[in-house]
């Protein structure tokens, strides 16, 4: 645990990518493989199910430290992290031990589950006594199931690649599913990650392993400059961007695996897709989108019949533990194929996009798979015009893929093209995948509640709740009267003008802007409810979001998707903020 705690401290203390990779490499060189197996798991996002709830741990800590719950809450407000709060308040009078990470997890933490409460309490208390503040923090995070650290999976893979001499892409492929929790990390699994094989074929231990997803970058340029930035339209494959769950189908040795982008094996949740995939030849891997499809008669000629259902329908289905006939009928899923990554057992990711596409079409011709249709227009401006129809088609914009590009790994910075000689422009951002999304929907709304953030935002008010007017205010005076009533804590009158909360957001501002808003929140606080403050409404924000739906769970009757702050509208008076009717109008889009 000491070695892992030191690694955590090193990773936590720096923002430099190189320093992080170096620290990881040092760790992999020194740590026993059994411990490293768990370190890789935790560092790349693996989370064992919570063994003990954080509130139980907090209560235990209060008991050990002999402090009252209210004082613990005050501490938590200052720290912004429960595990760290616990680590800081526990007495420093233990007897230190140094037990390895794997032994900690396998012999001590995992067996806690299911024990009687009193036994768990006794054990956790004695574990705390063996550790210093930093180690306690980690232990508490691991037990409470909230471990996070500032390294990406890509960095862990890079460090493992340097450590082992195995190609980073291969490490990435072997790591798919490493953190899904179905098989525990072990010495063997770690060694399989870094084992050297000469040939490029998927080895038996890679059976069922998908490939790392190639993720798209945001394209933020006006279409007028596309021709000069991206070249002629004829170099590109342009598809609609669908809003489902990105997935991969692996068919090998008569078996089917369906993986989500979150590296979760989801085969059982989508029996329709599994059935579809059984028809594929062995040694096939498809990349595509899992989505609910509504078969409707088409009114425009095209390759596809019907349209994608709103994401919320798919979401309802993901939430189900058991799939009843009714659910399967209400929300039937389909697989929209994008790409072919493996054919006849051969990894063909380095073939040019155009070639892979041709093979994909050939392979799936005559099957029930949907193949993502290609849009063609003669100019980028024509594409721009077509993109305006995204919302009515239920898609998010376009995906742009260079016909010469290889299928890369993750959200890499430079794409590869097998066609160009390695000495020239073999790698170039142009060979990446680009998502050219439609502009978000926007609403000008009013900040009404604020809550302090966590982690590096602890003690800074960064999580905001926004409201719109229930009808347009007649004028500034009417709006001001509502604000005065709020400040006097008068309950809103149902038939009168009022502000209705409809969304929360905590991203989109710079640190400097957050500081500025934090200052205003502190000066305009009306009431504190635990960690939440109500403020005298004074700030208008432009809020952007990707989608909007009716929702019976929200007071406003509306739920927005991916809300974030686009800017602070200091120029906009309160009474000019948008209204519920404006949100209703967006619903109809």
């Amino acid at each position: 645990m000491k070695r892992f705690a030191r690694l955590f401290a090193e990773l936590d203390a720096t923002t430099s990518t190189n320093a992080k990779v170096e620290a990881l490499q040092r760790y992999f060189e020194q740590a026993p493989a059994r411990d490293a197996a768990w370190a890789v798991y935790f560092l790349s996002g693996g989370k064992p199910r919570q063994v003990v709830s954080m509130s139980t741990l907090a209560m235990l800590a209060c008991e050990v430290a002999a402090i009252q719950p209210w004082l613990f809450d005050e501490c938590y407000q200052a720290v912004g992290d429960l595990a760290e709060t616990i680590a800081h308040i526990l007495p420093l009078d233990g007897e230190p031990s140094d037990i390895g990470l794997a032994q900690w997890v396998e012999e001590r933490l995992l067996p806690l589950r299911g024990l009687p409460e009193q036994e768990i309490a006794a054990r956790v208390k004695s574990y705390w006594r063996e550790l210093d503040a930093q180690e306690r923090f980690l232990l508490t995070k691991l037990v409470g199931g909230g471990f996070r650290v500032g390294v990406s999976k890509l960095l862990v893979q890079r460090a493992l690649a340097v450590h082992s001499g195995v190609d980073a892409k291969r490490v990435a492929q072997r790591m798919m599913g490493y953190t899904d929790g179905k098989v525990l990390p072990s010495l063997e699994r770690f060694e399989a990650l870094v084992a050297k094989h000469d040939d490029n074929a998927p080895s038996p231990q890679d059976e069922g392993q998908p490939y790392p997803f190639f993720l798209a970058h945001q394209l933020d340029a006006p279409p007028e400059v596309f021709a000069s930035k991206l070249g002629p339209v004829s170099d590109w494959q342009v598809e609609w961007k669908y809003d489902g769950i990105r997935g991969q189908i692996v068919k090998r040795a008569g078996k089917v695996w369906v993986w989500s982008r979150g590296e979760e094996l989801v085969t059982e949740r989508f029996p329709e897709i599994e059935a579809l995939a059984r028809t594929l030849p062995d040694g096939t891997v498809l990349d595509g989108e899992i989505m609910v499809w509504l078969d409707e008669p088409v009114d425009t000629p095209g390759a596809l019949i019907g349209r994608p259902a709103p994401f919320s329908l798919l979401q309802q289905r993901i939430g189900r533990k058991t799939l009843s006939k009714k659910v399967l009928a209400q929300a039937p899923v389909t697989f929209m194929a994008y790409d072919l990554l493996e054919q006849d057992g051969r990894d063909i990711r380095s073939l040019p996009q155009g070639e892979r596409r041709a093979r994909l079409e050939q392979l799936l011709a005559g099957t029930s798979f949907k193949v993502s249709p290609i849009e063609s227009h003669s100019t980028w401006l024509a594409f721009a015009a077509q993109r305006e129809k995204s919302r009515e088609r239920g898609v998010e914009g376009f995906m742009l893929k260079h016909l010469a590009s290889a299928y890369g790994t993750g959200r890499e910075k430079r794409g590869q093209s097998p066609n160009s000689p390695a000495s020239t422009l073999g790698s170039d951002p142009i060979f990446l995948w680009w998502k050219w999304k439609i502009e978000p929907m926007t609403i000008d709304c009013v900040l009404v509640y604020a809550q302090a953030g966590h982690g590096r935002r602890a003690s800074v008010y960064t999580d905001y709740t926004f409201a719109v007017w229930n009808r347009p205010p007649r004028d500034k005076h009417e709006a001001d009267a509502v604000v005065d009533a709020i400040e006097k804590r008068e309950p809103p009158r149902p038939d009168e003008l009022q502000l209705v909360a409809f969304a929360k957001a905590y991203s989109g501002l710079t640190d400097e802007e957050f500081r500025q808003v934090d200052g205003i929140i502190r000066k305009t606080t009306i009431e504190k409810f635990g960690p939440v403050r109500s403020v005298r409404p004074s700030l208008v924000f432009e809020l952007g979001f990707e989608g909007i739906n009716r929702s019976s769970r929200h007071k406003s009757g509306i739920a927005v998707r991916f809300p974030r702050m686009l800017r602070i509208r200091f120029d906009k008076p309160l009474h000019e903020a948008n209204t519920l009717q404006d949100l209703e109008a967006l619903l109809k889009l």
Partner: protein
Amino acid sequence: MADLVVQRPEGLYCPPGDFYIDPWRPVARAVITHAHSDHARFGHGHYLAAQQAEGVLRTRLGDIDLQTLAYGERIVHNGVDVSLHPAGHVLGSAQVRLEHAGAVWVASGDYKVAPDKTCTAFEPVKCDVFITESTFGLPIYRWCPDDEIFADINGWWGRNVVAGRASVLTCYSFGKAQRVLSGVDPSIGPIIVHGAVEPLNRAYRAAGVELPPTQMVVDVKDKADLKRALVICPPSAAASPWMRRFGADAQTAFASGWMQLRGARRRGGYDRGFVLSDHADWPGLLGAIGATGAQRIIVTHGSVPVMVRYLTEQGLQAEGFDTEYGGDVVEADVQAPDAA
């Protein structure tokens, strides 16, 4: 019996004595607990402070009408018995003891109870009413012993020397800087201090506090020294062009009690945070309060509501005073004022 210290818009006021303690607006007579700029302000008619504070006070405030007392020395002013006692915060810091008509009040100013080579150790003073600071008044604040912190700082500096990178340690120019200097190992490399720090070093040395040799950056002859140096400067300098000479690979650290929290550490953007405070931690505050024997406690700047509630639960009579001292916000420490 009337209170010996009350709140006024100008600051904490002693009615029978007709003087203020650390007032934030100009007054005729001020007792100053220590020379940090939020406690020792410009513009008062007459200043009373501890003898050892004279050098640092004059460095910061220039030519003022200053009367000093040795620790423990008593004077009587308007019938109020006044004496100053070591607070262990910085050089010359004092608690103010007031005695009048049989009642004893002590105002702590800022204090710490852990030992510090650069100032006289905190001394508990028996009293009826104790006015205490509460900057770190939460149980999450517990400091490690100094030798552990200095071993960390020396280790960090030593590793940076090996890697050929400057070690820039930011902290308050007055107090913290000298405490750091007194604790680091000068055999590791040269020590460079910012122009805001050196005048205070002179005042410390003049008061008999031993500090290792320091130089200003303009005095550095060999440029290679810049990469081996421990550089001590206020946080404002770390964000200024002054930093450029130490190279883009210079490692930055911040020494402050606030560095106890991961959030503050990460928000500050420093490579390292050393938890080194000149204020009492939670056990230190409770220990100091207990040692006074006071039954009534008045809490100022910091975690006022928390301490008041906690002390009340412990059976003491506790209340808060609103003051205008820094210390209750992280940023106050980060934006430490530059010395003139």
